[in-house]
């Protein structure tokens, strides 16, 4: 399993993501600079978290319009797995690879804390290492994670098992509708989520609940 991490200027959890992929997969992912001519031939493309282009204009809006996103869109259409975490999720939404919108947290404040996630659906390549309904710990760190979609979109997401993660046990940190923390595209090869599973993969992080996501993607044991 080969992975690539896409780096836009201003992303800052790229190193965390690369560390997680390397530690769990045993091989370092390719690092792809946003201006690189192409993405190497990989099975998994990851857009990590941070503040691409400073979150200026709107979170993810500028990166979503870069030529690199056209390349990612092409790969996704061919079935390559695409994972966007935090700002990566915001970029995927702004680029139209995932539906809905991520608005400012209802608290209007940046929030960094650990929350609980329910693994809502496991019939996809991202979450099949968990059991359906499993509650896991996971950190969040964002200012704009308040997921919203219109009723029709929500019905489709819920009806087709495309809600991958939900905030559980009253820990919704941002006001997301239906407690949605992460969603899949219709083909279920693109996942975007606000929480940071890459920051909970080893003893030093105080837990390893995030490992199963990467292990499933990289065909490794968690």
């Amino acid at each position: 399993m080969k992975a690539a991490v896409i780096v836009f200027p201003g992303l800052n959890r790229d190193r965390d993501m690369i560390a997680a992929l390397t530690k769990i997969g045993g091989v370092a992912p390719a690092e792809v600079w946003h201006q690189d001519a192409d993405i190497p031939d990989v099975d998994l493309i990851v857009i990590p978290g941070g503040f691409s282009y400073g979150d200026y204009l709107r979170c993810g809006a500028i990166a979503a319009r870069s030529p690199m996103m056209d390349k990612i869109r092409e790969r996704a259409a061919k079935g390559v797995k695409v994972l966007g975490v935090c700002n990566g999720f915001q970029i995927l939404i702004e680029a139209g690879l995932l539906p809905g919108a991520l608005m400012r947290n209802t608290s209007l404040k940046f929030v960094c804390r650990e929350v609980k996630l329910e693994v809502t659906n496991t019939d996809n390549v991202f979450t099949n290492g968990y059991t359906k309904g499993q509650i896991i710990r996971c950190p969040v760190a964002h200012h704009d994670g308040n997921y919203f979609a219109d009723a029709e979109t929500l019905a489709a997401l819920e009806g087709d098992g495309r809600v991958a993660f939900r905030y559980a046990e009253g820990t919704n940190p941002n006001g997301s509708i239906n407690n949605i923390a992460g969603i899949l595209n219709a083909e279920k090869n693109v996942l975007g989520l606000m929480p940071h599973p890459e920051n909970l993969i080893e003893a030093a992080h105080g837990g390893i609940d995030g490992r199963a996501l990467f292990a499933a993607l990289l065909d490794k044991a968690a």
Partner: protein
Amino acid sequence: MTLRNDIEITPQLVADHGLKADEYQKILDLIGREPTYTELGIFSAMWNEHCSYKSSKKWLRTLPTQGPRVIQGPGENAGVVDIGDGQAVVFKMESHNHPSFIEPYQGAATGVGGILRDVFTMGARPVAAMNALRFGAPEHEKTRHLVHGVVAGVGGYGNSFGVPTVAGEVEFDARYNGNNLVNAFAAGLADTDKIFYSKAEGVGLPVVYLGAKTGRDGVGGATMASAEFGDDIEEKRPTVQVGDPFTEKRLLEACLELMATGAVIAIQDMGAAGLTCSAVEMGAKGDLGIELNLDKVPVREEHMTAYEMMLSESQERMLMVLHPEKEPEARAVFEKWELDFATVGKTTDDLRFRVLWQGEEVANLPIKELGDEAPEYDRPWVEPKIPAALAANDVPQMDVADALLKLIGGHQCSSRRWVYEQYDTMIQGNSIQRPGGDAGVIRVLGHDSKGLAFTSDVNPRYCEANPYEGGKQAVAECWRNLTATGAEPLAATDNLNFGNPERPEIMGQLVKAVGGIGDACRALDFPIVSGNVSLYNETNGRGILPTPTIGGVGLLPDWQKSVRIGFTAANQPILLIGGPALRGTHLGQSIYLRDLFDRRDGDAPHVDLAAERKTGDFVRKLIRSGVVTACHDLSDGGLGVALAEMAISGGIGATVVDVEGHDPLLQYFGEDQGRYLVTLNLDPQGEEIVALWEEAKSLGIEAPWIGTTGGTDLVLGKAKPVSVAALTSAHEDWFPNYMSA
């Protein structure tokens, strides 16, 4: 030599630049002619308090700055300390007080930006940040607004830049009503053989400008930061700079990439007084002249004058001296990151600082004298008046349990979660202990087990009562907090916040506090390797509490052996290590008196430095031996508050026995120094704990068993039990309730 001057230099203009008549005379004597307007601006930037340390230098020289691990002490962008294995920690703390009061979000944000730049300028990737914030009384009309803005600004910049905030302080006192304090700390990691300095070397080499463009923001900022506030404060908003963390993040990556190419000879970030200060420092340190051509400086606005360009404090800018043959390589790095790169001058051999603008020479000054010959004052000072000690029987009475709940749910001791959850505390994936404990702990990337601990401490009410003891105590508490995680304290940075040094009583506070800091640092082998002085923190003639913030760094050989403050299991013995046999005895300047009885009397507690060191070394050894399951130092609120914090953090209660025949209020709320609470995974009746007591006894350290963990209540002797749940909600609720009120 005469330079054309379009603007007449009047006594009023000189005064508006914060220069005194005798200082202006010194300029005339130095250059033998009237300065140009641009030169006057340059002098005012270099000779103000903020940049020249003219009131404090004499006293700062008395601080210990050397040690076996110190690679670089004060005088560079940040201090550098060896942590073994060819690695170094690079750190500094700096204030951004005045700007944060005028414009809290941008003032705090650019404070964080400035300190991060100081660290990566030296070649170190920032790995941890802290901030010490002090605001006016909670009930003051501006306080909420300032807390909102400052916290959002700190978070807004640090989160976007991508450094974890691992520790900090937030305190309220009416004496900060008109002048809050924002002290920002950053630490980075570098290889010891890849540290970069600001000293220029070589004649005729390109001086290169990097980063963001120059605008008019912050013109005169350093001069503003060296003046008292009056009622015209709102008019000073244009002197506050605006931060752009996105540019700073790119600047970090670009600088580190550039440094790896070997192109950099010297580098200096543009902080206070921007282009002026950075160019002068690089030249003066290297015994070289510098010639700048301002027509080459990337600008954001048209028609900027030389004066404005030289004094602009636009953020996210760097100045470097580069190897000319590597210039194309260097340029490519900056083009990749879409940052400006411009050769704006050269080094010269004539020790002059020359500034060219539109084909004309607008400044030509002796470079060494600009820096080294800044006025230095031995300002008059008076011995502070130390309040009389409290009478032994002066113990205002209150129910112990009620007092504990009030203190743990009051503004001083309540949880700071509302604040630190707005900071990214986990980014980089190395945070072992996040805010809420005694010190932040991170693991060191590139090493199997090494960790670093960080804390920032000062007790301003002690410093106000007794500046010498307060200075000692700030250092001791910092050293103690590092020790409580199991770390070996390595070195510290000091951020000295005081009022107007032209007043002898304020100068007396500074002199005595620095004396206390120096004595404590010497006794604890805890050198000061960097720092910053912020004076004139007063509004309409009333100074802040003297606040010498100490930021400390400690080393853990194995982060897995670090301990936290929360109780970890029931039925474990609790020992109180250090301090007097009667546990608590000192109520003077305590939180108990201040927050429950509105009394600010008595002397501050004195720190016995020999006992401090002995006790700390003993505790650290215990932690490293693996028998300690939790450890917490005693500070504000004494034994009672420390026990409550351990119970809240661990979600486990405890039962503690009183010392018979001694007022419980003194026992639980006295703020005697040099004390730690530990819980042990030892049998309280077993041989190992007896051996521990024998060792403590042979060292002359009190280490009594005081109780046992367990249950859902905290029971302090004969006081009524308080549930951990009640303590927790009191502790957690104060801040969010206050901010939403």
